[in-house]
């Protein structure tokens, strides 16, 4: 083992013309990518008023329910709000397209491919995905083409044999010390390790780091299909009835609480 380590001598030219360029190119590509993504980002789409109303109608019931066990409002008001919400949920007043008419076939969940709104979200996800995939593929091709089988650097600490596949990808040598790092492995180390540097240069929420996108799919940007608010409203109606059973006004017995605090009763 020690024999082979001594016998290997790296040309300083490799350091100057391979190791540094690979690192530099990867850093620059990351920074470039950050700015390209900024350019590609379309401004958040404005929702029409009806859509916002539909989205937020659920929140009304949730706010009412959140405090129902110790509600700040007296029973009359609680019940009137609760009933009103139940009725409107039942009638579908809050639905974007108006209440469903009798005899309407229950709407099939629309295919995201035909819905332009969902398509937009998917496209923007694809675009960022492309911006990350293309340069990484180019760099990898570049390294594979010019520097295949290069050994670039020797780590200053010993490692176990398990790291061999990680550090010496592209160099099929059984006996070489694990401390030597091949060009392709150096690429991968940079790929996963440069995020800290980007954060230093570009700030916290940069989009230069491409390893993060590896796990994200372009379809994750769009929620799982358009939501069927009618169904959600019907479910929320049950929840409302349930909390009406739990309801207790905070003013109930408050006089006893105050009096006992002053030791009057």
């Amino acid at each position, binding site marked *: 083992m020690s024999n082979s380590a001594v016998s290997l001598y790296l040309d300083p030219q490799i350091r100057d013309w391979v190791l540094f360029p690979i690192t530099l190119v990867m850093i620059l590509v990351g920074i470039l990518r950050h700015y390209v993504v900024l350019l590609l980002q379309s401004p958040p789409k*404005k*929702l*029409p*008023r009806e859509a*916002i*109303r539909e989205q*937020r*109608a659920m*929140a*009304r019931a949730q*706010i*009412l329910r959140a*405090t129902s066990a110790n*509600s*700040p*409002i*007296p*029973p*009359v*008001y609680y019940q*009137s*709000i609760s009933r009103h919400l139940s009725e409107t949920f039942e009638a579908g007043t809050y639905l974007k397209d108006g209440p469903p008419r009798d005899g309407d076939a229950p709407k099939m969940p629309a295919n995201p491919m035909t819905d332009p709104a969902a398509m937009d979200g998917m496209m923007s996800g694809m675009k960022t995905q492309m911006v990350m995939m293309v340069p990484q593929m180019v760099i990898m091709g570049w390294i594979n083409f010019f520097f295949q089988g290069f050994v670039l650097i020797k780590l200053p600490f010993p490692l176990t044999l398990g790291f061999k596949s990680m550090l010496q990808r592209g160099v099929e040598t059984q006996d070489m010390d694990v401390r030597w790092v091949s060009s392709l492995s150096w690429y991968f180390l940079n790929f996963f390790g440069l995020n800290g540097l980007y954060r230093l240069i570009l700030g916290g929420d940069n989009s230069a780091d491409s390893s993060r996108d590896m796990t994200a799919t372009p379809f994750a940007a769009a929620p799982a299909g358009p939501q069927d608010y009618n169904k959600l409203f019907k479910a929320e109606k049950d929840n409302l009835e349930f909390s009406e059973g739990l309801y207790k006004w*905070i*003013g109930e017995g*408050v*006089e*006893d*609480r*105050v*009096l006992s*605090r*002053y*030791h*009057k*009763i």
Partner: protein
Amino acid sequence: MSLSSALEQLAIYRANNVRASQETFEHASVILKSAQQLGDDGWAVLEQLFLASVDIGRLDVADRCLKQLSDKFRDSPRVDVLAGIRMEATESTDVVLQYYGQLLEADPANAAVWKRKISVLRRTGKIDKAVEELSELLDTFYTDVEGWLELADIYTTCNRYSAALQALSHALLLAPQNPFYVLQFAETAYTAGDLPLALKTFLVVVDMCERDLDSPADKPPAGISLRAWMGIKLSSRRLMVNSHPSPSNTVIPKNLHLIEELATERVLAAYSSKGRKPEGRDVVVRWVGVA
């Protein structure tokens, strides 16, 4: 005044939403010349200075701020609102309403413009239109506490107390931790003549405010809890004379006389602190004694 201390003061005003227009104007004028060097903070200061100078009538300064802001942020809805405020200062309300109408047509979900429009409607006496628009706004943006309070305020000025109570109950749901809204609810209920409900809600205020005190009896009540105690005294005294019917079917507490005694004690405690003679003491003692 140095630049940094002026900036700090302005940031405090901004964070606490203080309407100290004259002071803001003085502090910010120092900064105006060097607004470009301040970076991103400068724009917030510029907006603040704009609002302050409109408030104190220095429209020349306001125009300069607005010019800089609209040069920097084209098509920004926030600057559009500022331009609307500038128009409100000089133009007739019809022109302003038309301007807001155009903005709303372009983007119906722009809450800031919508609220400005409602405030202009209310100011020009078109109360019915204002209430209608405000209800629609709150139907869309339910979580707007300010909006609910404004609606309650409009209803109160029109003597529609039960409607005001309904609006306030939404505000209470949205901010259950704020005793000032509870106090407002209680006082509105008192004005509406629902004395049992008012009494209960005043007690809730006291309960909220004195929850963290170990021995509340040792310390005279102050501020909001004193006001609540006075409310308790008022409503319990009237309830002892004759039992008012409650539109909200609130039960009158059975220990009414105990509560009344305690309220008298607490109100007097606030006005009999040792050492100095609090202002208006005689009036309060006479009022309490009349029972």
